[in-house]
């Protein structure tokens, strides 16, 4: 009786969607490594990977295969279970954040069945992302501690301190945006940014909350451990930080998780501030093509925007040198948190006393 009461077509639909999204995020992450090397090469007037396949396009696949066939080393002094759990958790949290991102408008089939291009539309969507991010600290912390290596310990403690410090500013910077949207559901936030121009102003949130966006972006850099905030894995001082002792696919998981996170955070940034899958003149386009084609166009628009965001992250990485740890903490605690609070209060005051 129990099995009969479950709507299996719903579960199969979601399973397919989840597999596609996870596969796509892993694919994008794989090719983001290639993109990163190409961008770095371009900015430094080099060629970058160019031997494996045309333009070195097979390079990430070769790298992946290499990681699989490398010897797996677990140091004698390490805590074996936690040593394996660390990278697994990092990858797991990276895979979980994509659940609430709306990838496109719902498709209504002829049979009347509505297929949502979002795994779970929950009304606390943003808080879910924060929950996943806050749990993501453990992967790095446990891995670094379990290695029983002083560099790794330093790296993991730095990583955790950095992540929790910037989580605060990130949370406060979003409040101002949420005061305007009045909802935490990402699907609804995207719907509110429909089109591009309305009532004499942009509909995208970046035009309504520019300061909030900048604070959120800086925090995203820090949460992703990306340059200029890549202190947890500072090669020159910490010998790769928390993953000094890692090899084989366990190292691959840490590196991979970082790129999956990069992809998903870019998608979330686009969803929150750059209109998600919305684009100018979308109503005219919707009128002239079938709903399925329209949904595909929307997904492609979102992916294009996301890739542009990823490229922006890469340009910054190869432009700005690494911060010092005290500078990092000062920026997070002494500048961004007060700034985000002020932004929140000013937004509230303007909406209540000026716009009303």
């Amino acid at each position: 009786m129990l099995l009969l009461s479950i709507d299996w077509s719903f579960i199969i639909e979601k399973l397919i969607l989840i597999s596609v999204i996870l596969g796509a995020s892993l694919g994008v992450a794989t090719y983001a490594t290639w993109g990163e090397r190409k961008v770095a090469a371009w900015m430094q007037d080099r060629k970058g990977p160019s031997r494996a396949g045309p333009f070195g396009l097979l390079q990430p696949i070769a790298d992946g295969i290499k990681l699989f066939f490398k010897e797996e080393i677990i140091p004698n002094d390490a805590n074996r279970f936690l040593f394996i759990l660390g990278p697994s958790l990092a990858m797991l949290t990276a895979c979980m954040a994509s659940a609430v991102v709306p990838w496109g408008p719902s498709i209504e089939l002829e049979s009347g069945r509505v297929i949502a291009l979002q795994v779970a539309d929950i009304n606390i969507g943003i808080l879910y992302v924060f929950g996943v991010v806050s749990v993501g600290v453990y992967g790095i912390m446990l891995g670094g501690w379990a290695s029983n290596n002083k560099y790794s310990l330093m790296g993991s403690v730095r990583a955790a301190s950095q992540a929790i410090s910037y989580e605060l500013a990130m949370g406060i910077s979003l409040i101002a945006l949420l005061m305007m949207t009045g909802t935490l559901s990402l699907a609804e936030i995207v719907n509110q940014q429909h089109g591009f121009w309305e009532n004499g102003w942009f509909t995208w949130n970046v035009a309504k909350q520019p300061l909030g966006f900048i604070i959120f972006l800086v925090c995203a850099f820090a949460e992703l451990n990306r340059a200029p905030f890549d202190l947890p894995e500072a090669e020159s001082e910490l010998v790769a930080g928390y993953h000094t002792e890692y090899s084989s696919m366990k190292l691959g998981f840490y590196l991979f998780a970082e790129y999956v996170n990069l992809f998903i955070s870019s998608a979330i940034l686009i969803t929150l501030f750059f209109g998600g899958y919305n684009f100018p003149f979308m109503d005219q386009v919707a009128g002239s093509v079938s709903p399925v084609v329209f949904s595909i166009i929307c997904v492609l628009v979102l992916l294009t925007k996301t890739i542009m965001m990823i490229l922006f992250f890469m340009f910054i990485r190869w432009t700005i040198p690494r911060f010092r740890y005290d500078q990092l903490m000062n920026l997070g605690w002494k500048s961004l948190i007060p700034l985000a609070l002020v932004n929140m209060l000013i937004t509230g005051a303007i909406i209540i006393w000026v716009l009303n």
Partner: protein
Amino acid sequence: MNPHQLVFWILSVIAIGGALGVILSRNPVASVLFLIVTFFAVSGHYILLNAQFLAIVNIIVYAGAIMVLFLYVIMLMNLNGDVEPQKSKLLQFAGIISGGILFLVLLAAFKTTQLSTTPINASTSIGLISELGQVLFTRFVFPFEISSILFLSAMVGAVVIGKKD
């Protein structure tokens, strides 16, 4: 048994198993991990009751913030076997006595409680963030302000202890 009940029982087993793991495991880091598992199971229970905000706050604050603090404390401690403080027999005995007394009190309290027979309606929306905010900032606005003073005192305490030099 409907799916709702099945999920409830699975989550309960995970929660109780995790809680037992916290007190039975010898490695303090493993205890912290078991505690995180317990929090997740409890969050699952909140979701079953449709208390979504509480569920996610439980994860963000307890699993994501307080447990990080616990891990820090454990990392701050010197975990080498040879310097671990040896607990005296007297201390162990005192521990057993106080734990037993607490257990008795809990047992007595449990025996006298009137278990509510009205089922909690999972379709209620009181646990949603908008309803919660509406109540928190109108009826309970005074306790809300008081809590900020509580935070202030906690901050002062933390800084006084942490910066003692």
